[in-house]
């Protein structure tokens, strides 16, 4: 069960190693040369290559990040979840260090990447991966420091995510409750899946070692407690996940969310709701296809939430045939744009008030000869939006108590927003209009 990783590589898409670290020396580093050929071979067999596979006693686990592969190899029956998450963590930490993680930034920062790889993993076991803490003793301008850096207390403390001695002149906390709606609607207008992924995001600018306690409204019940919610309009959270700073056993006992926060930005908690809610923005498409000459779309969009709210920056992406040409649009509101490289039309509406309904017509010419291969590609419509001051779950922050030894007063600020997640509606079959109507 030992989950150790033997070596980690970062490669470009051609399989060239940009940087690597051998942790255990039990696999020849040349094993990496087989990696890409094996992936390509699997692809050729039309078997979608899985992100982990075994060959000749060596296991390869990899992720894609931008134009890079991050690869771990091991001989053992390693913990695959840990390895995958660790690879993602490397990508995150390096991104925080260099803004962009790509070939160029790796080349430019190889010294510091070696240092990080050395600190984040020892003998194949993950160690400190908190980028805030790492930045305290592994810095890009180490040479400027007069004093030699020492390991921050936090590295080994129970509070491994926050350092001592943080000072702010103005102590503030920002809380953002963000709910993303994942929706999948089939071509007949039936909702197949509707799910809300919520997150309480925090930006913490507090001095010292503050103790925080977050109170949420009673409406929010946690199903996992086994206490069934009282009848009524309570919304059940299916699953709640907390940042590692939250004392989980305390939460399990008396439902209080208490924690010493990390400094700066982090997700305090995430949750999931499976409750069927009316889709906030409903889009219907009517497609008339005059094969070999043109195709016409009638799109109707409706905002199905309260009148006093409104959705901002609404974008409706409507897929069109790849070979469509000569676009013409007419819409009651907003602007319409044809993006041929993505084979779609984007209808943008700056502000979409609740309860309103708008429509848009689009018209395309089609080449008279149809490439049959393309005929079946039918991506769904996707919709983007943001609705401020609104949550579907009804979650509300009742209080945020902040206590610190020095007794300063700190102000919490709370915002709510609901936005699209994976919000997709499948396109209906086009109505085949056989007659050549005049344009």
């Amino acid at each position, binding site marked *: *069960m030992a989950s150790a990783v033997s070596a980690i590589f970062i490669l470009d898409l051609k399989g060239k190693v940009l940087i690597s670290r051998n942790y255990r020396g039990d696999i020849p580093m040349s094993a990496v040369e087989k990696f890409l050929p094996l992936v390509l071979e699997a692809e050729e067999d039309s078997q979608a290559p899985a992100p982990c596979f075994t060959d000749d006693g060596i296991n390869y686990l990899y992720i894609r990040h931008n134009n890079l592969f991050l690869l771990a190899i091991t001989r053992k*029956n390693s913990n695959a979840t840990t390895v*995958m998450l660790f690879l993602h963590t490397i990508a995150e930490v390096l991104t925080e260090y260099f803004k962009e993680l790509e070939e160029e930034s790796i080349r430019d920062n190889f010294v510091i990447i070696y240092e990080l790889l050395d600190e984040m993993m020892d003998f194949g076991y993950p160690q400190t991966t908190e980028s805030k803490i790492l930045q305290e*003793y592994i810095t890009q301008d180490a040479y400027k420091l007069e004093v030699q850096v020492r*390991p921050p207390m936090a590295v080994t403390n129970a509070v491994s995510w926050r350092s001592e001695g943080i000072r702010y002149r103005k102590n503030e906390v920002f809380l953002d409750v963000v709910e993303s709606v994942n929706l999948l609607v089939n071509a007949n207008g039936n909702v197949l899946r509707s799910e809300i992924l919520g997150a309480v995001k925090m930006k913490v600018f507090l001095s010292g070692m503050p103790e925080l306690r977050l109170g949420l409204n009673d409406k929010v019940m946690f199903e996992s407690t086994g206490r069934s919610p009282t009848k009524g309009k309570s919304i059940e959270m299916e699953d709640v996940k907390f940042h590692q700073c939250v004392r989980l056993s305390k939460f399990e006992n008396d439902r209080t969310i208490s924690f010493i926060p990390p400094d700066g930005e982090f997700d305090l908690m995430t949750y999931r709701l499976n409750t069927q809610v009316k889709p906030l923005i409903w889009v219907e498409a009517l497609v008339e296809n005059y094969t070999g000459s043109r195709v016409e779309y009638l799109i109707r969009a409706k905002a199905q939430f309260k009148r006093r709210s409104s959705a901002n920056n609404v974008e409706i992406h409507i897929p069109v045939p790849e070979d469509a040409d000569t676009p013409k649009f007419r819409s009651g509101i907003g602007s319409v744009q044809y993006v041929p490289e993505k084979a779609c039309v984007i209808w943008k509406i700056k502000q979409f008030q609740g309860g309103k309904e708008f429509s848009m017509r689009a018209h395309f010419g089609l080449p008279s000869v149809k490439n049959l291969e393309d005929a079946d590609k039918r991506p769904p419509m996707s919709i983007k939006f943001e609705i401020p001051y609104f949550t579907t779950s009804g979650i509300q922050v009742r209080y945020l108590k902040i206590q610190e030894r020095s007794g300063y007063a700190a102000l919490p600020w709370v915002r709510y927003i609901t936005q699209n997640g994976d919000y997709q509606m499948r396109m209906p079959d086009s109505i085949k209009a056989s007659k050549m109507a005049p344009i």
Partner: protein
Amino acid sequence: MNLDAFKPKFFATSTKGENAELLVDLNSEYRDRRKDAVKRVIANMTVGKDVSSLFPQVVKNMQTEDLEMKKLVYLYLMNYAKSNPDLVILAVNTFVKDTDHPNPLIRALAIRTMGCIRVDKILDHLCEPLRKCLQDDNPYVRKTAAICVAKLWDLDQERAVENGFVTTLQDLISDSTPMVVANAVVALAEMQESSASKDVFVVNVSIMNKMLAALNECTEWGQIAILTSLAEYRPLDSKEAENICERVIPRLQHANGSVVLSAIRVLMMFLRYIKNDEFIKGLIKKMSPPLVSLLASAPEVQYVSLRNINLILQKRPDILQNDVRVFFCKYNDPPYVKREKLEIMIKLCNDRNVEQILSELKEYASEVDVDFVRKAVRAIGRCAIMIDEASERCVNVLLDLINTKVNYVVQEAIIVIKDIFRKYPKRYEAIIPTLCENLDSLDEPEAKGSLIWIIGEYAERIENADELIENFLESFLEENSQVQLQLLTATVKLFLKKPSQSQEIVHRVLQTATQEIDNPDTRDRAYVYWRLLSTDPQAAKAVVLSEKPPISVESGSSKISPGLMDELINNISTLASVYHKPPTAFMGKKAFSADAVRKAAVEDAKDEEQITGEDGAATAGSAAPKNAMADLLDLDFGSSEPAYTSPPVSSSKPTSSGPNYSADLFDMSSDMSSGGVFGGMAGMNAANGAQQQQQQSFGVMSPTNNSNQFGDLAGLGGFGQPAQQQQQQKPAPSSQSSTVNDLLDLF
């Protein structure tokens, strides 16, 4: 440091004298110049140039107060110590000095690096500093030293024991710093695994309690380590198991998916000890939401999670019962995620949600990814076979799909419909004409074979069956052997059902097959039929037209034996749980020795036997004679047929064509999902080896074997009730011959 200024220099294209130039700079009297040179050395190392010749000069720069420089030299040492083992001694002094440095960062760095230099010479000098570091005041140094003990153990177990490091490590489990505890646990767990006596790390009550205490305070990675070792504990009774579960349950709320899966592993393992049904029910209920939430992670993590959910579902079918919608595929899911979601959708399919699932599957069947489309079509077939009430809807959906005339959809649908015919004989024969309309568009052997089977099976209802068969026979010699076998059988069936129309055809086919075909598999079957027909047509009827055993759903997909299942549950979240194979099947021995290969083959066979035993009992009658019958009984598609006596062979190449391709009938992807029974990627190694071995041994045997078979057959014709006689008489030779057939088809 201002890297931009240096950048062009570090990766400058190599000139002949680069190493010489570096040599000068490494010896420079200016610090900046030396540091710059070390960086260039490391840059060269990064791009794979050999800079090992600079060893002495680089090591000279080790003694410095510049932390960055020190780290670079250490890095260099780790990479090149092996190639300069004699020179490593140059570094020892500085190492030892650094483990005494006032800065804990340097103390830890030194001990960490020393452990990574896998050269015997350094071991002599490692023990004293390591002892000090294990007792260091600073937890950062202690946690690093804890891992270093595992490094030492890896190189020299005896030395680690002699120096008392194992005991010290055990003491560190009581350390006040959670991260030290976690690393001690990690190190001990690894050592336990490779220790001969298995007494390095035995998780008893006191250790278990200490670990539980540290669990709440650890980093996420530490929690995973502790949860992993916690599962090693064997609870005394149900009550204790419940208590531990209570302490583990809060981990399900952790943001790190690996913490969640590690917790689920503990819970699933401890469930075995719990007798309180109420508690078990509660536990199962609590596990569902966190499992679903894992689907919101990165795709690679989703993949691992889905493979695990697949296992957990087989073990505990009551979990996730109402959650099938969350497994519906998104348009932009990566293919490997879609494939796993599809598998789980089928597992969760029941008479309440089958409508929903079917309309999803139909949607998938119109996507562009050919592989995924095929899987979706197969999935529709599996629904039909699983749920009687839904079969008609499934058939209608399949007919809709056939009407799309998309070539690969049609072929896949026909393959699937053949299975539905097997499961529900005589129920859907009205659709046969529609199927026959597509005769000309079939070009894949499996699809062709399927349609031919259907024609043969329903020859009496199809008016122009003889014409259809005739049509296929035109290209008889060019066909794939799988199609040839089907044609052979279908022609014989046709003859038995409509003797008047087809006497000429059957004669011609048997003649061609026996005289012009080299493939012994086809040829032999033709002989068998010929003799049967010529000696006793009644017996031929009894054999060829006999009733086939019912087809079942799981046989084709990923059915895992209970023994393997338990082992896989013990390995939740690990690679074994992803491959659905026991760790021994893929764990890295350098190369498989002959012994290991044989052992793997035997184990596979054992697994197979387990399944065989189960299914065999259900269908009554022992497995071996059944298998003997398979060839003659026209069970080429017999996916319900449990007895494939040559598992390593037939399994090692799941997409193989041949009489036994039925193992894959339902599921092209079973090479991935079917675990140790049907070898997949992971087992290829072992299985291939075994295959070759077997091939050799059978290569020797097959001639005698064949003649043996003929002898048997010659005698066979004379018996009055051949079918039964056969069952008793023929098991051994024929089952072997089917193995031979497998081999011949494979190569």
